[in-house]
């Protein structure tokens, strides 16, 4: 009987990029909700649906005493007895850090899944980069690439990944400064306490975070039976189960507990948690992250006490 799962080779970035662009084509442009005005916010080329500095007309409003007369729109004011000021739409760019876990445990694909976890994480990462770049956001990858604002940011991220060694279990956060968003793709199979110890400081620095946990279906449904020897891809440790099918229920409970604990802890940080299985479409996770980034589950993640 063939084993259920297998260790796969790292996916070529070039191939992932093309798949990512195909995925990204399915998703509308992402307007990252830049709620925090900070020095990371610099002028970009998409509107924020509020008045501010920018080039495009937003609204006429009555002139308030004290404003500079140069702001008065005389053409509009000449049409009646009031004086109007022309407001412009605020256009700003936001910095989004994107990171994917490429550790050995991600190089895994079971017979139930379509692709390996690593492949899926890369696709999601590059697709998100593509979407954000299309919207003019600044995209960076901690430890790999400084934030840039360019239409070809996804390609450049892919190039940077290609030239970079495999990343470890959690991101190198030294590059991250100021308020920005970070999107993490990985399996997050380390103990929850270890994960939170790394992510907690980031959150306390004011970083908004979105965690996409990529999971192989075999890790969730535990389709093993009979005498089975399990190997840890990270450490090479082995453990043998006499009759694996008897562990199914216990494992399901332990797995659910782990995921719940992770989700709860992240929520306490104000971060969002998106579980994703590799036997589902990549677009599902992408849409979920897209919604969180554009703030559509309105401020859900930011409300204190949740």
């Amino acid at each position: 009987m063939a084993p259920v799962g297998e260790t796969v080779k790292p996916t070529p970035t070039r191939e992932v990029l093309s798949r990512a662009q195909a995925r990204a084509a399915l998703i509308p442009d992402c307007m990252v909700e830049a709620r925090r005005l900070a020095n990371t916010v610099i002028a970009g080329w998409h509107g924020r649906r509020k008045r501010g500095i920018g080039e495009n007309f937003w609204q006429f409003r009555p002139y308030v005493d004290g404003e500079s007369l140069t702001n008065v729109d005389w053409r509009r004011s000449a049409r009646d007895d009031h004086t109007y000021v022309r407001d412009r739409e605020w256009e700003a760019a936001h910095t989004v850090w994107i990171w994917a876990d490429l550790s050995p445990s991600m190089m895994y694909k079971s017979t139930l899944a379509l692709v390996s976890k690593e492949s899926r994480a890369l696709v999601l990462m590059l697709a998100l980069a593509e979407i954000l770049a299309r919207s003019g956001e600044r995209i960076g990858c901690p430890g790999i690439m400084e934030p840039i604002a360019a239409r070809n940011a996804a390609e450049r991220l892919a190039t940077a990944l290609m030239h970079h060694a495999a990343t470890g279990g959690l991101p190198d956060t030294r590059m991250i400064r100021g308020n920005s968003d970070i999107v993490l793709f990985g399996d997050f199979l380390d103990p929850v306490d270890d994960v939170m110890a790394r992510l907690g400081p980031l959150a306390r620095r004011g970083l908004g975070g979105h965690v996409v946990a990529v999971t192989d279906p075999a890790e969730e449904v535990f389709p093993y039976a009979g005498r089975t020897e399990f190997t840890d891809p990270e450490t090479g440790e082995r453990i043998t189960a006499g009759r694996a099918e008897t562990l199914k229920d216990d494992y399901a409970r332990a797995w659910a507990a782990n995921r719940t604990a992770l989700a709860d802890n992240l929520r306490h940080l104000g971060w969002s948690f998106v579980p994703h299985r590799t036997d589902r479409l990549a677009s599902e996770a992408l849409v979920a992250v897209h919604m969180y980034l554009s703030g559509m589950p309105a401020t859900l993640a930011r409300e204190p006490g949740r």
Partner: protein
Amino acid sequence: MSAFAFAAPAVLAALVLLPAIWWLLRLTPPKPLTEVFPPFAILAAILKREETPARSPWWLTLVRMLMAAAVIFAIADPVFNPRANTLASGGPLVLVIDNTWASATDWQRRVDTAAALIDDAEGRDLPISLVFTAERQHDAGPVDAASARNRLAAAEPRPLPADRTQALAALRTALDGTPPGTLAFLSDGMAAGEDDDTLSALQALNPADFRLVTGDGLATVAATAAVNGADALSVTVTRLEAGAARSLPLTAHDARGRPVAAGTADFAAGETVATGTIAAPFELRNDFARVSLDGVANAGGTYLLDDGFRRRRVAFLSGEVVDPSQPLLSPLHYITRALAPYADLIEPSVADLSVAVPELLDQNPSVLIMADIGRLPEEAQDRVRRFIEAGGMLIRFAGPRLAAAPADDPLVPVQLRKGERALGGALSWSEPQPLSAYPASSPFAGMRAPDGILIKRQVLAEPTPDLAERTWANLADGTPLVTTGPLGNGRLVLFHVSAETAWSNLPLSGDFVEMLRRTVQLSRGGGVASQAGGAEQQALPPYRLLTVNGTLAAATGEAKPLAADAAGTIATFDNPPGLYGTEDGYVAHNLLPPGSAIRPLAVPEGVTVLREALAGKAAWSLKPELFTLAALLLLADCLVVLFMGGAFVAARRRPLRGSAAAVLLAVMVLSLAAAPALADDAKPGDEAILSRLDTTHLAYVVTGETEVDRISERGLAGLTEFLTYRTTLEPGEPVGIDISADELSLYPIIYWPVSATAAMPSSAAISRIDAYMRGGGTVLFDTRDQFVALDGSAASANTERLQAILATLDIPPLEPVPADHVLTKAFYLLNDFPGRYAGGPLWIEAQLDRAEDPSRPARAGDGVSPIMITGNDFAGAWAIDANGAALLPTVPPDERQRNHAFRAGVNIMMYMLTGNYKADQVHVPALLERLGQ
């Protein structure tokens, strides 16, 4: 001598290893399946410690232990009935072997036994005298083991009884007083005659060790007689030893060896003779060629049957020329239908009686049937008389010719009234006579009482004193209907009515069939004896011989012709059992004469023998069974291990992946392979033929002239439309056909516009048309020259062309459609058949037996005229264009005439498709009136 031993007992010591194997098996867990599993930490948390090292369950270990034990025992080779060398030394080994029919079933065991004895003799370095009792030549001289083995291998059982006297004489000569060491008599257990002193004679040779080796006497069964009874074949079966009650199935085979009927013979307990029956219909019993006892595959279990069971061959003669188109008027039709299931029928090829009678009698029939033949030519009559006197049977039917024949006809059983006819002369009944009950002496006795048979005419017998006893069936008034009389060795039978329905309705009844069947059954089966005149006996050459296995094989050179008086004697080497004669007639020579019994070989007083069973069963080793058991256990163990390893669980978990897909693929491949491969017998053109058959199409002959063909096509299209509109006939599109190539039989009628300017059809095409007309088709020739011919001068060019075409056709006499022809009544009531031109007649086949009957509005005739000829240009009148408007004007321009032309077309089509149906229909009121009274 133990019944059970090991060939290699030392191997059994390996059994002490079993506890060690047990210990090893208990310790070794099955190999786990290795799986990479990233959430290892989570799994490790719930699976802290490796559970108890998976031990095989005790029952699995037990299975493996059994497997090991089975292998050890198998290698040790346990053997049942091992034999030892117990041959007496001091003289040659003498083997007397019965290779008779009774030894055939266990011949191999006999050979094995003898071979074992020969091996023993070789071990003791003794010479061997080997003699077989059912051989023609005996060579008993002592030989060495190798040549004895060769002779043993060459020997085979014979389908003959033993002839031990000669074998003993040869043995006595060969030994020449030397007392044998061991004398082994491998007997079939049967005594060779009333007083078989073989054992005493063998004892007289003074052997040091006298063994009588016999097989299972209970198995020796033989069929000794078969008698064809009234409703079943009874078979006498005898057996050697009167044991417990036993039921033996019997099977009757036909000449090709196919089993056709079955029965059983039941031996009562303590009885040696049983009689079994095979109940089968008479006609099936006719086919029996041999009866065999099921499961007794030797010559004794087969009883050959001969001519007594053959179907009778029946020859026919009829006085009148047979008209094949009117079979119901022919007496031979009724006789043929009645006898065909029971007899082989032969008919003369010529009508000339002086030629036909010798021709028929040369084929050696059992019965000659003459229907209404008044007087035969002189030499034919002599020939028939000789036939009857040699044992043949003549069945005659009366008729007008017989009634008119002179009274001194020698070939009638009773004297018939001179010059009298049954009707119109001395005899005239007010009403037809039924039959009375059959006399008890008649072969018809026992048949259902005749009912509903009415005789309207008969020939009468002169009353004579012995008329009553010569009568097989009477009319109600006592006059004979069937009379019989002997002539020489044969018999004459006269039916006083004709064999067709003109004189009576007897031929229509089932009694007629039964009467003929019983009468024919009385006749003697044809065969060699009748050919030889029954006087001089001649020897019969062997035709098929019975093999020792109970099957028939071609005769070999060793068999000699069977003297005619040898039938019924026991089979000998010169005359082995089988069929003697030729294919046409043969005599069955069976192994055992009827009534014979088989007796066991008794050991006389004063003879001491050591009885021994045959070997053969002895060397029965348990080795293969043990290895099989071990293999099965291994298989079970594999399945268990797979099951415990979770192979089947995993396969269930992932029903749509790999393994399931593989199973699906396998099923698909299998179903593809199993799909019956239907032979594709489609031929090119089938589609077109089927479409023509689905719908009736009007057809016209393509002449090659564009205008003529266009008018034909449009004309038939117009008629098609008219038919569709007016009648329930809805023909398809008109079809233009090439008479030299296209299939014609698909069309009921073919319209042929004769054109002198078109090419003359080839003779092959005309012969096709001829065949079409013979096959029931009709050709409507249209010369379209009525107008041209009006000048009354010579025939037009088209008519000349028609004459040229018809010159090579076999056409019946023609006449213009008579006023009472069914063609005038088929759909419309018509007086004439106009086309574009009016006035020309429509010629059809003349009805010759024309009886003017003013009361009948339409003449009934059989069949449909195969030809119609007109000059009125039907197609021109029918032709319409795409809008339905007429293409050509009628001459004179009269729409009423066009309408009549269409009506003529409808009537022609209805006549084509319904034949004389309308002629019957118009009589329905009259028929009803007559039935009602």
